[in-house]
């Protein structure tokens, strides 16, 4: 626990130093959101129907882009190699990475959701549903993208390989999250979908950190 908090502090310090790290994903999110209506056409009705999908795809892409460099620096500097050699501190390190990743990308998206609703013409219940799905879904997104980053850290080509590994895992999330928002937008209940999202969150929380640790070990040996 002490280790975790020191490591988390380190990550947060890195984020504070490189403000671009958390500002840019947010801006990217907004930019992608503005691209869609442009490419697809500005009819408000149309937009309202597409909104859930768009929000979630934009969220995915911004988290994905942020994840790419997650372990790169520490890998290149030999930090990870030496952590693996020293064994015990790897798990808290990974947990700190995951937490920091969520704090810097998931949380801002969550806070942005009212603005998004405004841009995409969303109302009452949909807005609520979107915020809820983001609350439960972005941690899963962070977990998955850290997993992808861990798996691909020593791969010759990070970015896109990462996307490939993560996207398939991410599809169930996308389906349930946008289904929830859609249900809300036509006035139906959406507790079912939310429950599934919760389950996905707990499930990945239990499994992913261990998987990341072993991925890192494999990557340095």
């Amino acid at each position, binding site marked *: 626990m002490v*280790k975790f908090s*020191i490591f988390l502090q*380190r990550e947060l310090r*890195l984020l504070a130093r490189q403000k671009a790290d958390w500002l840019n994903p947010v801006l990217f999110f907004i930019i992608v959101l503005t691209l869609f209506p442009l490419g697809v056409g500005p009819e408000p009705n149309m937009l309202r129907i597409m909104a859930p999908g768009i929000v979630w795809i934009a969220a995915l892409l911004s988290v994905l882009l942020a994840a790419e460099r997650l372990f790169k620096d520490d890998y290149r500097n*030999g930090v990870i190699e*030496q952590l693996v050699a*020293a064994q015990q501190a790897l798990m808290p390190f990974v947990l700190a990475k995951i937490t920091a990743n969520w704090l810097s990308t998931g949380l801002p998206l969550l806070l942005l959701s009212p603005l998004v609703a405004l841009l995409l013409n969303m109302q009452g219940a949909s807005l609520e549903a979107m915020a809820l799905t983001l609350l439960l879904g972005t941690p899963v997104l962070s977990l998955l993208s850290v997993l992808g980053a861990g798996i691909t850290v020593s791969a010759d080509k990070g970015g896109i390989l990462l996307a490939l590994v993560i996207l398939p895992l991410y599809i169930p999330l996308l389906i349930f999250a946008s289904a929830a928002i859609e249900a809300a937008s036509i006035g139906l209940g959406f507790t079912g979908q939310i429950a599934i999202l919760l389950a996905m969150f707990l499930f990945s929380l239990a499994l992913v950190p261990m998987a990341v640790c072993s991925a890192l070990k494999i990557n340095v040996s």
Partner: protein
Amino acid sequence: MNIAQPTFAVTAPILLDAANLSCVKQDRVLFEQLSLHLKPGELLQIKGKNGAGKSSLLRILSGLAQPDEGQLQYLAQPLPAALSDYAANLCFIGHQSGIHEQLTAIENLQFWQAASDLHIQDEFTLLAELGLAGLEDIPCRMLSAGQQRRVSLARLWATSAQIWILDEPFTALDQSAIVSLQQHFIAHLQRGGAIILTTHQPLSIEYHALRALEIHYRW
């Protein structure tokens, strides 16, 4: 702390025992039937030309890579099983420095303090000792090559690990830094520590338990 007192007679336990190691890279046998052991108070220098396989051997000895053949034992226990004990008593510093370029020297030290149980009384005095006074608060990427190396080696002044495995620790260091690092090695050995290192620069240490192992470059 688990450091043996300077009573390393013949009865001193063998810390690390490697038997019949071999390492094959892409059909090329780097070394075969290589055995070595390390006792408290010993410094073992791995010698060899560029590409002989020194770094590969060190990675095997530190548990990062598996040998293609042969066994490792730590305090008479076979290694994959005893890995966590071994890792807790080991300080490995490889070709890469293990410091994050965006963090300051202090912050890097704090990270390693948490990660590998260092005992640092005061970071500032430690860094000043290493000639980094006044540079504690600058991100490491702005330090020169040698200064970065010094930050990375600072761990050796604070670790309680008994076995040090160092891959070319003198790289980028200036002469005065090399001399003080070697003095620190001797102090560690005299406290019962043990060191395995590689370097292409001649050691200038006066010490009774220096051993060298040469890996011949094979093709």
